[in-house]
């Protein structure tokens, strides 16, 4: 099987197609890559076309995110909109022990089968994988990507807090849209501000804009959506779960993506503690973690200045919640972070949770489904429903299970009010 490496020169000649995952975050990240000089297009297609294309070229037992992501990329190539000699695809790799690190190989195989072996794939990873095809990145770009995760988290978090209550429908999504563009412009201008200050200012302004939106306070049960990273964030992967829940009158809480970034970093020193190994590497990563934690703190502090907003728990708190239930060595897929997210939500007053994963997700047998039982033993109020997503799973069945969870959520809310 042949495939084409992504060489650094392609930065100047090729258009990069990026598959969708978390719409807000990825829009901002696309801006960051554009600021770096890449010609980037974030794909937005969804539905049967990408699903069917994915099923055709990806092994049927592969997980749903692989089907959708690869389907989306190949469907884009098939659309004929792009010059095949001047287009490249981007795929991320974490290097963890779950299947996701192999999406890149699966994509290459799929490209070969679909007759696109000449299209290069760039690997977006920070683990030193695919040295010949890695997406070159400056330090500045790296920092900007971190910022975009933080900004994305704030926009996502505040939008979901405000939108169910806004008086003027669509007001909060308007704020999101405006900010995505503003952040894009700002990053392209390469501001000379120190990172901390930039973060502080923008975080504050975002929160201020949301605080201006007029709202009606009404009773809306809070529902957390946790799980595998793709189906948790991607509306295409979870049949627009967030909108569905909002239509049911819920306020939806999704854990921040920055937690996942910190989780990936933290696993390195954690493994060094468990199994030994490079001490220096552990120290370096611990330092990085400290910087990240500092950034997280700055952003959250700005949100906290507005008493109307609920500020998500810090990564540190998630870690200590997770530790009570699962070993931090469980680091494949979302691993202990998923358990920690659930525990934290239950503890902080959101006992109603949907744990979303692709059908057959290997790490979630343990970190999701098994831990749900353990959490329920400790917190009887926990009302957690695992939902599997798959190209062939019926939406009616998924909604029916979600409604079961909501029945109990509403009952609990009533009892509370009585």
């Amino acid at each position, binding site marked *: 099987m042949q495939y084409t490496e992504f060489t650094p020169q392609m930065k100047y000649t090729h258009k990069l197609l990026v598959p969708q995952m978390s719409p807000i975050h990825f829009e901002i990240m696309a801006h960051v890559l554009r600021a770096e000089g890449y010609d980037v297009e974030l794909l937005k297609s969804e539905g049967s076309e990408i699903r069917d294309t994915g*099923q055709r070229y990806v092994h*049927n*037992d592969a997980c749903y995110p692989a089907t959708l992501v690869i389907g989306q990329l190949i469907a884009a190539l098939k659309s004929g909109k792009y010059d095949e000699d001047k287009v490249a695809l981007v795929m991320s790799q974490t290097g963890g*022990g779950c299947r996701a690190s192999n999406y890149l190989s699966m994509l290459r195989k799929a490209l070969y089968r679909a007759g696109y072996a000449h299209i290069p794939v760039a690997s977006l990873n920070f683990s030193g994988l695919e040295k010949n095809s890695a997406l070159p990145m400056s330090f500045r770009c790296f920092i900007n990507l971190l910022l975009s995760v933080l900004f994305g988290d704030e926009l996502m978090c505040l939008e979901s807090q405000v939108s169910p209550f806004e008086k003027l429908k669509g007001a909060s999504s308007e704020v999101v849209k405006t900010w995505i563009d503003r952040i894009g412009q700002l990053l392209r201008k390469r501001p000379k501000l120190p990172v901390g200050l930039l973060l502080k200012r923008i975080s504050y302004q975002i929160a201020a804009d949301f605080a201006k939106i007029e709202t009606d306070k009404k009773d809306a049960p809070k529902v957390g959506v946790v799980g595998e990273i793709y189906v948790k964030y991607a509306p295409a992967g979870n049949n627009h779960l967030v909108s569905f829940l909002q239509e049911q009158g819920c306020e939806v809480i999704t854990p921040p993506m920055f937690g996942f970034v910190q989780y990936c970093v933290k696993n390195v020193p954690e493994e060094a503690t468990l199994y030994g190994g490079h001490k220096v590497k552990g120290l370096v990563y611990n330092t990085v973690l400290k910087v990240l934690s500092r950034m997280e703190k700055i952003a959250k502090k700005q949100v906290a200045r507005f008493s109307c907003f609920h500020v998500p728990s810090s990564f540190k708190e998630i870690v200590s919640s997770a530790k009570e239930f699962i070993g931090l060595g469980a680091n494949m897929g979302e691993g202990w972070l998923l358990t920690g997210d659930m525990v934290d939500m239950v503890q902080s007053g959101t006992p109603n949770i949907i744990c979303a994963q692709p059908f057959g997700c290997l790490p979630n047998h*343990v970190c999701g489904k098994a*831990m749900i*039982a353990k959490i329920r033993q400790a917190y009887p109020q926990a009302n957690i429903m695992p939902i599997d997503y798959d190209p062939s799973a019926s939406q*009616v069945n998924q909604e*029916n299970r979600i409604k079961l969870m909501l029945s109990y959520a509403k009952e609990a809310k009533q009892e509370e009010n009585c």
Partner: protein
Amino acid sequence: MRLGLDVGSTTIKAVVLDDQGQIVYRTYTRHKSQVKEKTREILTEVSARFGDEKKLAVAITGSAGLGVSELSKIDFVQEVYADSLAAKRLVPKADVLIELGGEDAKVVFLTGLKDARMNGTCAGDTGAFIDQMASLLKVSTEELNDLAKAATTRYVIASRCGVFAKSDVQPLLNQGAKREDVASSILYSVVNQTVAGLAQGRKLKGQVVYLGGPLTFLSELRKAFDDVLGIEGLLPEDSLYFAAIGAALYANTIVDFKEKIELFQQNFASTYEALPPLFENQAQYDAFVKRHQKAQVLRCLDIDYDGFVHLGIDCGSTTLKTVLLSEDGRILDSTYAPNDTNPVEMAVSVLKDLYQKYPNLKLASVTSTGYGEQLIKQALNGDDSLVETMAHYRAAVEFEPECDFVIDIGGQDIKCFKIADGSISDIFLNEACSSGCGSFLATFSEALDLSPAQFSRLALFAKQPVMLGSRCTVFMNSLVKQAQRDGATLADIAAGLAISVVKNALYKVIRTTNPKELGAHILVQGGTFASDAVLRAFELELNLEVTRPEIAGLMGAYGAALYGKDNWDHKSLSNALSVHELDGFTHSRTTSRCGLCENHCLLTINRFAGDRLYLSGNRCERPLAKKPTQPALDLTVYKRQLLAEYQNYVPKQINVGLPLVLNFFETLPFWHTFFTELGFGVCVSSPSDGTTYASGQADVLSDTACYPAKIVHGHIRQLASDESLAAIFYPCMPYNIDEGGGENHYNCPVVATYPEAVAVNYQKSHPLLLYPYIGLHQPKKFVQQMSVVLKKLQPKLHKRDLQKAADKAYKAYDDYLAKVQKEGQRIIEEARSQGRHIIVLAGRPYHLDEQVNHGISRLITKQNAAVVTEDCFLFGEKQKHQVLNQWTYHNRLYNAALAVGQSEDMDLVQLVSFGCGLDAITGDEVKEILQRHNKLYTQLKIDEIVNLGAIEIRIRSLFAALAKKQRKGGKQNAIYRVYPANEIHP
């Protein structure tokens, strides 16, 4: 007054409560997928009865109720919640509700920690499954219940889902197991599925209440639940109507019936993306029919034909087909009929009829094929039998000499093969998940009171076929409900099902991405292709014209007859039963437990007149009392012997239990040595047997995990009950030992962290469950880690002793691997010296568990081939692979594939456990490596399913293909003879 409507996946229940909460009206009816129409009928009737309609509050519940509720804007309440509302009112003492519906199973804990659970996506179909099984047995569900009452033995039937269970049930019936026993076993498998999926470690105890159709109608099912749970459950009055009553209790919006009934006149808004219709118009269809009518076969119409004839019998999973050939290969006669679970009687009557119809018959040969090839051969004293793939191949090349691809979709199985240079170049057989597609179409149409032909007709001109997925029939069934809500008509669904069956074959079984890869001359056959809708869907999907022989359903029998003709010496007569012998034909079936080894296989013994015998259910040859001339060369036996040496438990002051599961199948020598050296007594759980899985199934927390993981709970239970143990040691190990060759050396996520899942439901403090994160890949840190872990058991351990024990343990591990490799080499050399073929049975260490591999290696040694495993080829150099090579065990697979690719006398069979997502990656890569070396790739998916029928066909097909290939290559070595099932080589 209040009305509650429970719109389920197969039935509608309605209840009207008066103001005192008394039931004043109730109805129960099957909706036959006409959800909207039936609901409207009921509303009309209720409105007529309770004249002053304005006073009725209404709510809808049920798994198919969501769509109806959206359409009519009547309040919806989730059905499990509705159940619990009703239970609170009607059976206040209830602790647990168990409700089985048409599609979903639910368990609700009402007291203590409140909890409600519904089956996962994969384990749907409960009620529908019982219906299907009843139709398989040709009885109603009530009769199935009656049959179960007279059961004497119980078979183990896979309980993951209906599709898997059917893979066990169908062969049982064909082997002649007693219907009574099968009926009872089916009900027990429903119980096991419910317990394994929904108990999740919590005891179903106290006052258990049974609800829903199956539990209401089937007393034996209730008894089975009582038996498995050790309780006495209660079937309350109105057990069918609980959800409906709950909905009525929930109802608080008074509705205007006239308005609602009118709303039901409208159609569901069509909200799905329709697939293109199968045919645009009648003319297109006519042209299609005309084209396919050309695919005729030569027939002999001479009633008084008196030459020699060859009879081919294809004893399939659900039908029996025969073809009678004249000496010059024309078809003289043929039959096609359901086997009614007694293929022997069927075959005998066919033969009798033939003798009667053709008095001058000179029967030259009788050849059987299909699932029941051996049964029929023994019953009729036939001359020969052959594996069905070969029969189909033979028929295909006769029909269309240029054909290069054959696809056969039968009731149960999908078989495909590629033909290149006059021999089979690739074989594709479905795994359990995609089985039963054909018969699903049949039972689905039956449930709608339509004949298969009518159903197919309906599909042909559907305007907007709906996509129903391609995973399996359980998923398809639940997507039907979705489709109705999305506004699909019955015709659209019929067309959608035809398309789904085709997609399943193409994308799941053959896994093609480019239809042109298949070939230019494609032949389709099998009963399912009798449907024009399926045929058309196939052509549309491929964008190609294919050939469907007019005898599409008879090709197996045709091929068998041709095979008989090919091997005939042009003079002798068949040995098969003559007219007179048929008159005295007797057939009896008995079952007995084999006592020759600890497997205690349940044998089904068919006895025929003339002392002929056919035995099935055996995993080995011992009950046949024949001895193979050459001893089996099987590395798995040797490995099991090595591990058995650690079974000897001598209790000491402090004792540790080790479960023989997952990676322990390889690390056992390490851990056993380590603990022994430290002075602990070490107790290893006994190898899994037939009861291990069941004993721990109630602790399973994720029913879609792989079987090797789910069986862990049984081992833990066994160890937990041993009072002499201070601790059970079962470490989490995300990393494996680095054997080089890969980018990393992980274990899979399940092997890595399953101990965490086990610990959730482990409530005992003695023995203590120790499940620390341990890495054997860093020997230095290992000692430090263990000294912390073991402090809980033995505070006085000295670091020096730990180090010494660790050194010995690493050595024991290395020794074990070296021994395995050495024996592997010995087997390879011996096989070569004897001219025997070598099969690398490649999987994971835990595939050594006989409950996991179900004795597959014996199916291979039965073919006189030697079996070695993937760990013979350890420690290869770093190879460039097309996947991210980051798991130790998986790296071995690639090494094994490379080694096989370089050896002419080796082939590889990959074992894959159902649910192993990583093997989606390794399977593709191993296949590519093998194909680069022009080797066939065989993957066997294994799970709880006990029956090896389909797997045996695969293995024999592999050997048959190898034999053909070799003959092509001009070699006349006997290595590749294909040995029939249950017959010992000479």
